[in-house]
C-alpha cells in the first residue's frame, strides 16, 4: 500500500456519515467551524460528567471516534438552555444534535448505564406512554428507588413533609399507585407511537440510501 493510500485509510471513517443518517439533525455536524462559542456559552460550565464540550464532540465525530462519542456522558448533560443555538455563527442546532446523539447512543444500548438524565428520561417515557398520561406518583417513587430499596426509603423519608402537604391540599392521590388515571384512547396513543416509529425508520432508510 502506498503512503498516500495508507493515510487515506487511516483517516477514512464512516462515523460522520453514520451520524448524518441516524442522528436527528446529524447532517449539521459537518458545518461546525470550531470557533468555540457554543462551549464558551454553555452554562453547565464543565460539571463533572461534561467531559467534552459540543465543539469537541463535533470534531470527535469527524475524527471517527465512534466509541468515545457514543459512550460519553457529555451530551446527556445538556440542559436545553439553547444559548449555543442562539449564538452559533453557523446556526447549528447544537441542542438538538446533543439530544439526537444521546438518543442514538441509547437506542444502540451503549449509552452510560448510570447516567441520571438517561435514567430519568427512560422512567418518564415508559411511564407516560403506558397510559398516555404521566403518573406523577409512580414517576417520583420510581425515581426515589432508582438506587435501591434502602436509598429509596431514605429519599422518601426526606420528602415526607412535602408529600403530606400535597396530600392535605388534595394535590396527591395515594390510590394513583394502583393503576392511576388514563387518557381516553390508550390504544390510539400506542398506535400513533408505532406509526411514528415506522415513519422514522423509513426516513432514516431513505437518508441512508441517498
Amino acid at each position: 500500500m502506498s503512503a498516500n493510500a495508507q493515510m487515506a485509510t487511516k483517516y477514512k471513517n464512516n462515523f460522520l456519515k453514520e451520524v448524518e443518517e441516524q442522528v436527528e439533525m446529524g447532517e449539521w455536524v459537518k458545518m461546525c467551524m470550531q470557533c468555540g462559542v457554543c462551549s464558551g456559552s454553555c452554562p453547565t460550565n464543565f460539571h463533572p460528567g461534561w467531559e467534552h464540550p459540543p465543539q469537541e464532540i463535533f470534531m470527535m465525530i469527524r475524527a471517527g471516534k465512534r466509541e468515545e462519542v457514543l459512550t460519553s456522558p457529555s451530551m446527556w448533560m445538556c440542559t436545553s438552555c439553547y444559548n449555543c443555538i442562539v449564538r452559533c455563527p453557523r446556526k447549528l442546532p447544537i441542542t438538538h444534535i446533543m439530544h439526537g446523539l444521546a438518543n442514538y447512543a441509547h437506542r444502540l444500548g451503549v449509552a452510560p448505564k448510570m447516567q441520571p438524565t438517561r435514567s430519568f428520561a427512560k422512567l418518564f417515557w415508559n411511564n407516560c406512554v403506558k397510559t398516555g398520561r404521566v403518573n406523577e406518583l409512580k414517576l417520583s417513587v420510581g425515581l426515589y428507588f432508582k438506587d435501591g430499596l434502602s436509598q429509596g426509603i431514605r429519599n422518601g423519608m426526606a420528602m415526607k413533609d412535602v408529600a403530606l402537604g400535597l396530600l392535605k391540599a388534595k394535590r396527591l392521590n395515594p390510590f394513583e399507585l394502583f393503576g392511576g388515571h388514563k387518557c381516553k384512547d390508550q390504544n390510539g396513543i400506542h398506535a400513533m407511537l408505532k406509526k411514528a416509529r415506522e415513519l422514522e425508520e423509513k426516513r432514516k432508510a431513505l437518508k441512508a440510501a441517498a
Partner: protein
Amino acid sequence: MTAIVATNETILVVGGGISGMTAALEAAETGKQVVLVEKTAALGGRTSQLYRYFPKMCHPTCGLEINLRRLKANPRIKVLTLAEVTGITGGSGDYTATVRITPRYVNENCTACGECAKVVSTQVDDQFNYKLGKTKAAYLPNAMAYPQRYVLDASIIGTAEAEKAKAACKYGAIDLDQKEETMQIKAGAVVWATGWQPYDAAKIQPYGYGRFKNVITSVEFERLADPHGPTRGKLLRPSDGKEAKNVAFIQCAGSRDENHLRHCSRFCCMASLKQTHYVHENFPEDGKSTIYYIDIRAIDRFEDFYQKVKADSSVTFTKSKVARISLNEATGNPICHGVDTEGYHRYANEHDLVVLAVGMEPSVKGMSIPASVAADSSGFIEADPLNGGIFGAGCATNALDVNRSVQSATAAALRAVQVVNKVARAEA
C-alpha cells in the same frame, strides 16, 4: 455656488474616499470630465481615519497627499462636498443625478486660519474620531482636509455663537445665509464608491459594547493610536484614562456570523495584526496583545506580516472565538470568557482593553441606491449587465482593504471611460 458643467460624456463618481478619489483621478487623467460627489465635508473617507496602513506600516496621509496633489493639478475634476446623490434617472450614456448640497456656512474665501474656532465655545461630537471626543462647532474636518475649509455645525446656526464666528472672520468667509440646494447633474456613467461602515458592535450583545466602556472597536482603536486622535496617540482606555497595556483583539466580531454579517470582512485579521504593533510600540517593555481568532486570514502576500507578528513575544494567539465578555467592577477590566479549540480549556482572561475587530458592512446596504443596481446577500454591489452604466467601486462592491479598493476603483474607472467613449463616438 459655481455652476457645474456636465454632459452625458461626464463621469459621476459618488463617494470621495480612497476608491472614489482613485476612480475620479484615473478617469480624469484619461481626459474625461468628472464630478466627484462626497457626503461629508472633506475627501479621504475612512482611509483618512486610519493611523497606519498594513503591511508597510506607512501613514495614509502620505498616499492621500499624493492623490490630493493629482486632484489639485487636474482641472477636469469638479469636487462637491457635503453633497449627496438622492436620485438617478435615465440609462447608460444618459443619466441625470439629483444632488442635494447641505450648507457648510463657509465659502471659498476661507484660509483655514482658525479664528472662528477660537471664538466659538459650543462643542459637538467629533465625527472624525468616531465620537471619542468633542470638537468645536466651527471646525476643520481633519488636519489634512480637502478642501482646507472650516465648517460651521448646523446646531449653532441662528445663535449668537454663529454671529461671533462671523465677526471673527477677517476674510468674509462665513456666510450664514447659505441654504440647502438641489441640483441636477448629467452623466454618461456613474461610479458608485460609497464605501463601508463598521458593523454596529452593540448588536453583538454578549460582548457588551456600549455597556462596558473598555470594549471598543478596531476603528476606534485606530483613532487612539493616531497622534491627531482624541488621546494624542497614547493608548489610554476610555473608562479611566489608564494606559491600556494588556489589550485583547477579538476577531470576527460580527463577520462570518449568520446572526450578523455572513461574509468574511477580509481586512480585520490584518488590522488586528497591525494594531499589535501599536501596543508594542507604545509599551515596548510591558505591552501585551492577545488575539482571539477562529483562523487567521492573512491572505496571500500578507503571510509574511503574520509570521513576523507571530514571532513577537508580546503577542499571544488564542484559537477561540470569545463567547462573552464580563466586567470586573473593581478594576473596570473586561474579562473574556470562552473555550479554546486547541485542548478545549475553559478560560476567563482579564484585559485592560478589548478591541473588537468589527466587520465591514457596505454603506449601500439598506440604503436604496437611487437606481436599480444588483446587490449580493450581504448588500455589496454586484457586477451585473443590468446595472448599465453604473459601476460599483471599492468597499461598495466587496470587503476590501485599501490596496484592493484602489484596484477595484481603477477597474471601475476604465468601465466608465468605455461607456462615455461610446457616447462620444455616437455624438461625433
